């Protein structure tokens, strides 16, 4: 079952739009500002999902993440939120890249190519990169677990 209140595909900014906006802005501070806007606009998670168990470790801010698998479409749906808006912006990028894909698609996505395209590797502090990688790993693990449980 998909929780329609949060991070549904329809509410998400598509990756292509993020690319275009980044290119248009050019300057890294402006891009970070845009990330904040993306973060502010990110649909929120229900409070009862912000549990210790759903927390992603290795981030400077609190990050919660839940993955739902839709048996019909065989796609993985992601829900995530942070208390820091810049991080929510990064979450928006991750959701745009990973949302509503099959586990196999997720594992095959070269997310670092996305980060490169956005220049995030250059603009994020090492700690923030750690946090970002923590989220990516969490998503990958869910996909892998799903794939192992039920090969497509």
């Amino acid at each position, binding site marked *: 079952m998909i929780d329609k209140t949060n991070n549904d595909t329809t509410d998400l900014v598509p990756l292509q739009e993020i690319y275009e906006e980044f290119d248009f802005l050019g300057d890294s501070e402006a891009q970070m500002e845009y990330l904040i806007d993306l973060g502010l606009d990110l649909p929120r998670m229900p409070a009862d999902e912000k549990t210790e168990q759903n927390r992603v470790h290795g981030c*400077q*801010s609190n990050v919660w993440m839940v993955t739902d698998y839709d048996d019909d479409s065989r796609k993985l749906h992601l829900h995530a939120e942070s208390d820091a808006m810049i991080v929510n912006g990064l979450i928006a990028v991750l959701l745009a890249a990973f949302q509503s894909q099959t586990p196999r698609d997720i594992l095959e996505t070269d997310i670092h190519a996305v980060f490169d395209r956005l220049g995030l590797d250059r603009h994020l502090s090492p700690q923030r990169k750690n946090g970002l990688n923590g989220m990516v790993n969490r998503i990958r693990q869910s996909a892998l677990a799903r794939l192992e449980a039920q090969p497509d």
Partner: protein
Amino acid sequence: MTAINTPLDVAAFRAQFPILQQKDAHGRKVVYLDNGASSQTPQSVIDRTVDVYSKFYANAYRGAYEFGQRIDDELESSRETIRNFIGAERKEEIVFTSGTTASLNVIAQGLGSTILKEGDEILITLMEHHANIVPWQMIAKRTGAVVRVLPITEDGRLDLEQLPQHLTEKTKIFSVTGMSNMLGTINDLPQLSAAAHAVGAIFVVDAAQSILHEEIDVRSTGVDFLTFSGHKLYGPTGVGVMYGRHDLLEMMEPLLGGGHMIDRVYEDHSTWAQPPAKFEAGTIPFVQAIALKPAIELVQSVGLEAIKTHEHELLTYGLERLKDIPGLTVYGPAPEHKGAIITFTVEGAHPQDLAFLLNRHGVCVRHGHHCTMPLHDHLGISASVRASFAAYNTRDEVDALHDGLVAARKRLRLD
């Protein structure tokens, strides 16, 4: 040299820091309020560094030639300046290290491996920086000693009522910060020293923060070990100081082995040189140690009292000014018990976002746990924003912090 009771001429002081004269990449004036992490560097320190590299550079304590002797002289002169600055008895009690963290590790492991046995206690406090926590945990693990933690009061001062239960005959070492790098709390070192010595404990002070704001006289205060870093004292990075009472330095084992710290090396064992050499293994950061002297001279030329008065003014002005920020919580005690550090959170705004948005206004502050995780855990927060002031900061810069916060809250749609 010290200009007693002359108020600090902030403009003149500030003019000595080239970095503060420039605009940042976006043409904004730089409002540097991260002095607790590292202070900026005056021209005199930069010049001294360049001079050594381009006029008389040679490895220290090694050469019979002129450059070598010049370097040795300059090093010893810097050591003497430090001795005088902290009121140590002998120049040989001043050990150059790579920083406060290194100094504290040298003390913890050197002292610990000599005097600690199972069941002995080391007392630290809840407001310590990780550099004054982790080394003690490490030596405790190795020796079977126990690290105990003195709690703090609700307003962020050491809970002295609980001192007697924590500082006992079992306590062999009491290590405390001179000034909290998060709360700003200034601790009463003479009182704590007396309490430590009353139970026969060795009294160690992490002066990384306090050295720049509070006068210290190790002899009259009864400090057995004092540690600080050059880079927080308007000096260069890569150099720190470990002061130790001479008899303790003689007794203590060195942490690092290598050149210069030995008396004699045999194939199967070695004997150690006298302090300070015993603790100065390998090539020391001699250029930085020499360039630390003009930093201390700068402080001495205006006087720590004048610096303190000015910084305290900024602190009270800042606390007053920030009062109108909705959802603001400032940590730490009332201004009369603290140095010029304002650490805070703003409801609904993550410290990380605040630090980023403040930077959009040219204001440099730090966010995170400031290497005080146990303290943050105790306060029930995972991160905070810290504005920490130095002698070159001005009221304008406090205003910039205020205005930046107002704008940041707007930007985060909190208004």
